[in-house]
């Protein structure tokens, strides 16, 4: 096959109608975010005394963090299991993780009431080892740092030998070049340590994102979602959705930039999908059965319907689809199945954090405002936009040698 292809920055026109649409969504979302900063969470959202958490926590933090699992799952496969034939998927998956986790941080700055003291959990005087949220905060922060370290070699590769600062900054060219080379060498030696650290950090906080909903208890969280096994279920689904996101990211970059689909890697890689989704389904069903809660899905309430959509369409259907080799060999079908599973796990996060929530003596319910939805959409748009931008600046996507074009 194209043994000579290598990752290079994408060339050509950056702005397409799709890219402009992303910019428009980002602009509208930024407007609503400004409204939130000026007038507060109350006017900008449908959050209330009974429903203090909305989609900014469920989607922008929990679901986006799950999608960011593409980073640690790929690292485990490519660098721990040394399956180097999947290396071609590594960089798109890493960039997706990097951006996802960056926007988890951004989401918190929008959602926290006192966002300007977001650094408080870092102060030893305020450490709170009992708090699941504290564990998530520390791990996400550390893992974000690890992700940037893992990205650094790509930056070095891009600029070593090409450092060319404008104007009077020219005098620093040599120094910057030298520090990039030193950084590249040092990181090259230490990278394994950071990769392992990243996997450990993800194992911890992907579980704890589930533990977060343990404390409201079975009295406040519906039986279709509440279980002390929430951390295990969240971790298993994070691995599965990380694999799906890695597949989707590879296929999407190929499609978006008109390069060939990396099916020689993506097809065998996606064999892992039905295995992990299947394990997740099995554990979910066994847990529901043992707790005597399987029947709740037929109780005919909107919660039962939400569960059915999440579980049967978002989880079981992708499981069945990816079981077939024909699907795994077809870029279109495989993208559909992976994307459906990403939506399914996102729905699970939304349902676990919001739909399942049953505050005592609740007045009304929660449905996001248009502004909340737009801020949420804007963050997703920003991830896609920056993904494209990074592919234009850095060597992310494998392409055939330039002369072959």
């Amino acid at each position: 096959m194209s043994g000579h292809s290598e990752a290079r920055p994408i060339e050509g026109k950056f702005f397409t109608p799709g890219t402009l649409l992303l910019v428009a969504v980002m602009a509208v979302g930024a407007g609503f975010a400004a409204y939130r900063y000026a007038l507060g969470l109350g006017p900008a959202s449908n959050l209330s005394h009974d429903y203090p958490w909305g989609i900014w926590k469920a989607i922008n933090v929990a679901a986006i963090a799950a999608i960011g699992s593409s980073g640690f799952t790929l690292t485990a496969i490519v660098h721990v299991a040394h399956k180097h034939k999947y290396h071609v998927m590594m960089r798109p998956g890493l960039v997706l993780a990097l951006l996802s986790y960056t926007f988890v941080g951004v989401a918190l700055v929008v959602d926290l009431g006192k966002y300007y003291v977001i650094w408080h959990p870092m102060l030893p005087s305020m450490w709170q080892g009992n708090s699941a949220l504290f564990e998530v905060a520390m791990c996400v922060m550390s893992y974000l740092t690890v992700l940037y370290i893992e990205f650094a070699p790509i930056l070095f590769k891009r600029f070593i030998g090409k450092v060319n600062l404008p104007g009077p900054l020219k005098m620093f060219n040599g120094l910057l070049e030298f520090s990039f080379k030193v950084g590249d060498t040092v990181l090259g030696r230490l990278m394994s340590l950071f990769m392992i650290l990243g996997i450990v950090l993800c194992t911890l906080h992907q579980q704890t994102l589930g533990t977060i909903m343990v404390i409201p208890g079975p009295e406040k969280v519906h039986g279709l979602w509440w279980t002390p096994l929430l951390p295990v279920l969240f971790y298993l689904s994070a691995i599965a959705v990380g694999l799906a996101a890695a597949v989707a990211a590879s296929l999407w970059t190929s499609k978006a930039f008109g390069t060939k689909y990396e099916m020689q890697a993506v097809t065998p890689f996606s064999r892992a999908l039905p295995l992990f989704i299947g394990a997740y389904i099995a554990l979910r069903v066994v847990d529901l059965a043992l707790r005597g809660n399987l029947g709740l899905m037929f109780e005919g309430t909107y919660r039962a319907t939400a569960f059915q959509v999440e579980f049967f369409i978002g989880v079981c259907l992708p499981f069945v689809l990816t079981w077939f080799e024909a699907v795994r060999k077809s870029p279109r079908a495989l993208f559909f199945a992976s994307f459906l599973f990403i939506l399914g796990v996102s729905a699970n996060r939304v349902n676990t954090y919001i739909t399942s929530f049953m505050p005592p003596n609740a007045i009304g319910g929660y449905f996001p405002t248009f502004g909340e939805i737009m801020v949420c959409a804007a963050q997703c748009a920003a991830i896609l936009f920056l993904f494209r931008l990074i592919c234009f600046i850095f060597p992310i996507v494998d392409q055939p040698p330039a002369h072959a074009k």
Partner: protein
Amino acid sequence: MNRREFLKTTGLVLAGGTLAGAQTAAAAHGPELSPNTLGVLVDTTLCIGCRECELACDRRNNLTKPPAPEESFQDKGVFGSYRKYSPQSYTVVNKFDNPETGEPVYVKNQCMHCNHAPCVSACIVGALSKKENGAVHYDYGKCIGCRYCMMACPFQVPANEFDNAFTPSIRKCTFCFEFVEEGGVPACADACPMGVMTFGKREELIEIAHERIMRNPSRYVEHVFGEHDAGGTSWMYLAGLPFDQIGFPKVAGISNAQTSETIMHGMFKHWIPPISLYALVGAAMWLFKPKDGEDHE
């Protein structure tokens, strides 16, 4: 060691770790309570719904700004619908109807000041803490506004100033912390004309409660709400109707903080699980390295 053996060993080590975690399950009891910890016993059968407690609470904590006129606290029209806590009301009296006699039952609620409070356990920065005198105390200076306490509270007590764009605070009953520290009495208990609230050592209040039930079994249901409910609370209740008929939420006999803390502590027991995992992944990375030494990038 080949891959199969490695995976087998790994599985055993992980299973062992899980078991060890499960065995430490009993560890998360929550804070040790002082035998002198204080509380309030609320006898709902004595309450006449005069709302003097709401007024006293409002005045002591400067809740309504500007202060709502006293007459507004005499308005009985508020009993038409169920009222909840808000940043301006730390305590609320609600009216229920006795389904048999049709007589009104008034219930005064506020923060229960749980012994092993889920909000304290959940708080990301330790802004909420259980004090020796029994109060669950809130520190605005630490709070980052994540509202996890509101998610965690089994009684849906903490209120957030959603309309405050710059300095939103969590607001809830303070147990009149500073006054109680100096030997005082919570404002509501002090103001009550009917002696609904008995303020004192929690252990003694439990005795008083059971004594009242014993002396007058027809007046009370045989349940001191808060003695064990939600793991025990500083504020406890007596009632003539089952508690689920007078607005009390269903809660477990233990604090849900215990379940959550068991998981959290198990995951980080002496840092052994994370460090073992690091070592295992490292070992795997080394073992799985291709033998030809060629680590194709």
